[in-house]
């Protein structure tokens, strides 16, 4: 039996070439693909980074840290602002970012109040930063500071409350009622109907479309048309935010709803007993 190897090789060459081409293509794809998972693997989240202990290096690092701290202190002292005397700061609504927020001011000889948000002007003064207890204006390249009158020791949440129409009563909710709603969420939708409000594609609150007069929600002072903007000073921007709050209800003793009613922001406080 004669085996013609030449013919077999001739037949196999195209297959071998195709095999190589396929392998090369995949190798090229592999170069451009990520080599490891972009996520932190389970169990590695709390691993402490290993670092070889080097005595002299550590001493140097400590020295560096002390030096930076001193430098930072010097910078803080150097920052000086001129004070504005003819304007009174009535209220501040600040967020964790100083370039976000708005304030209510009044001129000393006037009862009329003006609301300003960051970036807006008031008599050549431009509001540039909003902090918990003071704000910074800018005029002709110089920075001016305006503080809340008597707000030195006040906590942040009290400052926020000043500019918000506050309902005097603090409502109390029975924990049993909350537990009941947590066990069966369909009970909520029997008593209340809400729909998200979107602004530029993002959730900007939840509007109450229907509320049962016999429900607990009605007793809590909520009304049809109210827009729930936040809970416990946390702005609800997504369903995930709402879920997070819902999950924490078990461990919460106080609830504070920020709602928009007739274009006015209001705060409603509830005590869970």
């Amino acid at each position: 039996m004669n085996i013609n190897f030449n013919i077999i090789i001739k037949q196999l060459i195209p297959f071998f070439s195709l095999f190589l081409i396929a392998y090369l293509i995949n190798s090229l794809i592999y170069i451009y693909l990520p080599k490891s998972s972009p996520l932190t693997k389970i169990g590695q989240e709390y691993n402490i980074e290993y670092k070889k202990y080097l005595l002299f290096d550590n001493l140097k690092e400590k020295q560096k840290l002390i030096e930076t701290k001193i430098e930072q202190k010097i910078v803080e002292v150097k920052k000086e602002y001129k004070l504005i005397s003819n304007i009174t700061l009535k209220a501040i609504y600040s967020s964790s970012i100083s370039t976000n927020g708005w304030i209510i001011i009044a001129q000393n000889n006037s009862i009329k109040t003006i609301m300003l948000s960051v970036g807006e002007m008031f008599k050549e003064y431009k509001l540039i930063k909003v902090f918990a207890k003071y704000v910074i204006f800018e005029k002709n390249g110089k920075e001016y500071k305006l503080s809340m009158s008597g707000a030195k020791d006040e906590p942040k949440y009290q400052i926020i409350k000043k500019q918000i129409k506050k309902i005097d009563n603090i409502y109390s909710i029975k924990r049993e009622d909350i537990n009941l709603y947590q066990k069966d969420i369909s009970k909520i939708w029997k008593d209340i109907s809400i729909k998200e409000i979107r602004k530029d594609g993002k959730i900007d609150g939840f509007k109450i479309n229907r509320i049962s007069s016999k429900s607990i929600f009605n007793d809590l002072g909520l009304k049809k048309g109210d827009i729930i903007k936040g809970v416990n000073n946390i702005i609800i921007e997504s369903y995930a935010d709402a879920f997070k709050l819902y999950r924490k209800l078990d461990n919460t003793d106080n609830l504070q709803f920020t709602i928009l009613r007739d274009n006015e922001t209001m705060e409603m406080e509830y005590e869970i007993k």
Partner: protein
Amino acid sequence: MKKLLKYILYFVFFTIILAYFIPKSNLYFLIQKEIKQYKIELVTDKIINKYFSLLLEDINIKYKDLDVGTVSNLNFTTYLFKTDVIIKDIQLNTIVSKFVPAKIDSIKCKYDMLSPDKIYLDSVFKNGSCVGYIDIVQRVVKIKVILSKKLISKYRLTVMMLEKDKIEGEYTYEYKF
């Protein structure tokens, strides 16, 4: 005719080899990277490379750092011109389960080169199912949801977000991204 058969054989051989060598786990890392932009995370340590597929087991799904649910296994199979992703036994978190059924038996995603603009979806869960597609070009998700009366009354809020069809129990969900 013989020549044509020969070329078809070459083509089939080439696609098989290409599908066999494709770096599947690296493709999965790429998917992880892409969906992370939308704050969705699929976390698992069990990544099994098979000849023409990639099998992932015990996946933890996270959305915005929130545990949404778990998947017992996800099978990603590619034949280059046809890619299937079969997700089995999805167990959603109790919080999410207030809005959608807690247990989803399976979700099948199919991508075919014959209709390259669409990814077809098919899902089955207790007392309901849904069929739809993701149009990559038009950037639209369109899903037809079939729900039993029990599910309609149980998930009223979710049903409110769907558009009711002419047939009782059928709804359409449309989302542009």
